[in-house]
């Protein structure tokens, strides 16, 4: 752990991505269709990283972008859809037509993925669950093993630990050591950070370690699980970040419309990802007034 025991893990998003995220590596993202680290995803796309194996629960915005940009070789997960907006167009094109490249899919349920990360986070080889029994998820996924529990003889499904190479997790507040505090729901982030070999934290605010110490009960991820800390305000936009900004349903709706065709998606990608040097330029392109409106809206309901 000695390389993780450093006082200052601050770095730029470019550096964090290029240091820890390599072609072909396995990866997971924090958040849960909310608090997803979109800024980091844009940077992964800009750096042209390929053949990622994404292990995740419900991570549509992230996956639809990465799949459409051709970064993903395999998905082990539970859900790829846009809630009330619709299906994930890039994911559909990849699975149904192999565009821009085929991807290998392995289906799990969200509870199963949660248990995979709990196992990974505890350094156990597997966890049991009572989900998926009797369903076709088990029929098509040979890594789920149904057994009789040795205490009562009831059927349970075993799922293997998830141990991705990298986790990228956006949080509200972190210090330079990497102590990360999450407000609102916490998803599977506490386990993802522990299960991954390397963890990148992106955050809305960097706070002094003294401030962390005033509210240790809110620290979800302790420093010893963290390799890099990156300051990325509005790092989840267009998704919401509890206490900081609300979801931009219209921007997401526009993305969904444009991504209905491959051409439309590529246009969107050019405008908002390739056409922006970094996250700051993306924010400018979206418009600071728009971002501030969303912060105003969120703060009527939640404050950190």
């Amino acid at each position, binding site marked *: 752990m000695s390389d993780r025991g450093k006082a200052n893990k601050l770095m730029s998003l470019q550096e964090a991505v290029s240091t820890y995220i390599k072609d072909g590596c396995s990866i997971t993202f924090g*958040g*849960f*269709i*909310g608090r997803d680290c979109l800024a980091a995803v844009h940077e992964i796309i800009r750096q042209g990283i390929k053949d990622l194996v994404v292990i995740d*629960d419900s991570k549509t915005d992230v996956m639809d972008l990465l799949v459409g940009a051709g970064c993903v070789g395999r998905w082990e997960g*539970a*859900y*790829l*859809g*846009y*809630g*009330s*907006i*619709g*299906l994930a167009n890039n994911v*559909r094109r990849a*699975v*149904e037509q192999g565009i821009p490249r085929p991807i290998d*899919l392995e289906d*799990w*349920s*969200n*509870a*199963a993925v*949660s*248990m995979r990360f*709990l196992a990974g986070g505890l350094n156990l080889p597997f966890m049991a669950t*009572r*989900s998926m*029994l*009797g*369903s*076709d*998820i088990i029929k*098509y996924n040979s890594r789920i093993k149904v057994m009789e529990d040795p205490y009562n003889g*009831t*059927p*349970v499904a075993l799922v293997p630990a998830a141990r991705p190479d990298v986790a990228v997790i956006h949080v509200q507040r972190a210090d330079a050591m990497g102590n990360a505090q999450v*407000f*609102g*729901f*916490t*998803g599977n*982030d*506490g386990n993802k950070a522990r299960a991954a070999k390397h963890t990148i934290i992106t955050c809305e605010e960097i706070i002094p370690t003294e401030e962390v110490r005033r509210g240790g009960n809110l620290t979800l991820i302790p420093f010893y699980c963290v390799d890099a800390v990156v300051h990325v305000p509005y790092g989840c936009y267009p*998704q*919401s970040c*509890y*206490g900081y*900004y*609300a*979801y931009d*349903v*219209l921007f*997401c709706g526009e993305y969904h419309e444009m991504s209905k065709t491959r051409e439309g998606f590529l246009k969107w990608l050019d405008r908002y990802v390739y056409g922006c040097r970094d996250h700051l330029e993306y924010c400018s392109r979206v418009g600071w007034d*728009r971002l501030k*409106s*969303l912060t105003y809206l*969120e703060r009527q*309901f939640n404050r950190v």
Partner: protein
Amino acid sequence: MHGSAEFVKGKNYTASELMAITTCKEFRDWEVAFVGIGIPLVAGILAKRLHAPNLSIVYESGSIGPEKFRVDFNVGDSSAADGALCLTSEWRVFGDLQGGYYDIGVLGGAQIDRYGNLNTTAIFGGGDYRRPKVRLPGSGGGNDIGSSVGRVVIMMRLEKHRFVPRVDYITTPGYLDGSPGARERAGLLGGGPVAVVTSKGVFRFHPETREMYLHTIYPGVEAEEIRQSVGWDLKIAGDLQVAPDPSEAELAALRAADPANLILGGAGARERLSGLDEFVELTLKHAKR
């Protein structure tokens, strides 16, 4: 499932609105509900605003018992956490689901069969699981809710290609092959589906055969029309009920719960908004605080 803004012929409400109002009656006060996103969620918010103010809604992202000030577009939106009693982790709420703490779950689906099994993974069409005709979102928490929650209510538009004898893929177990004790034998803890709320009427399940039958029709709908939209020989309750039209109060509460009509009205409603500022304004105006 997604909404549509079109009124039912001769009525002052849309099919989505009617479904939301019908579903909302399945929730009881003081219950704990594990609800998926989209119209199911609006039904939960509506129940809280009407007859079940102490209903606690749980989101798989890890939010327990939020005050429903504003509508959510995803289970992970910050709105899902507004004034929650407990903000925790995803694995924890799935554990509580498995622990039997949640009374009711509401799910959408793309395909359902006569025993209430749901498919939200893939429509095979000419293809198969690996290369399907339509790739759907996958289970998400649907399988988990269907496996472990006390009772399941399903919301689906009634269309013949959706109501099939056997789903292509069982994402979420209903009564499996319908044989006695099939769920228990598989090891499932939850009670299984109790109702399928559609755009034309409500189906329930026979206590012995576990087969879905028509229980209630909406005003102006013929049972025969429904039978034609189902891919098996549908049984109809001897005492078939006719649901009343939604009341003005119900419609008003529903429309205030989704003030920009973005859930119930679908993509069309987005285009009718002048922009983000109007959305912010509508949200704040109708927030129940």
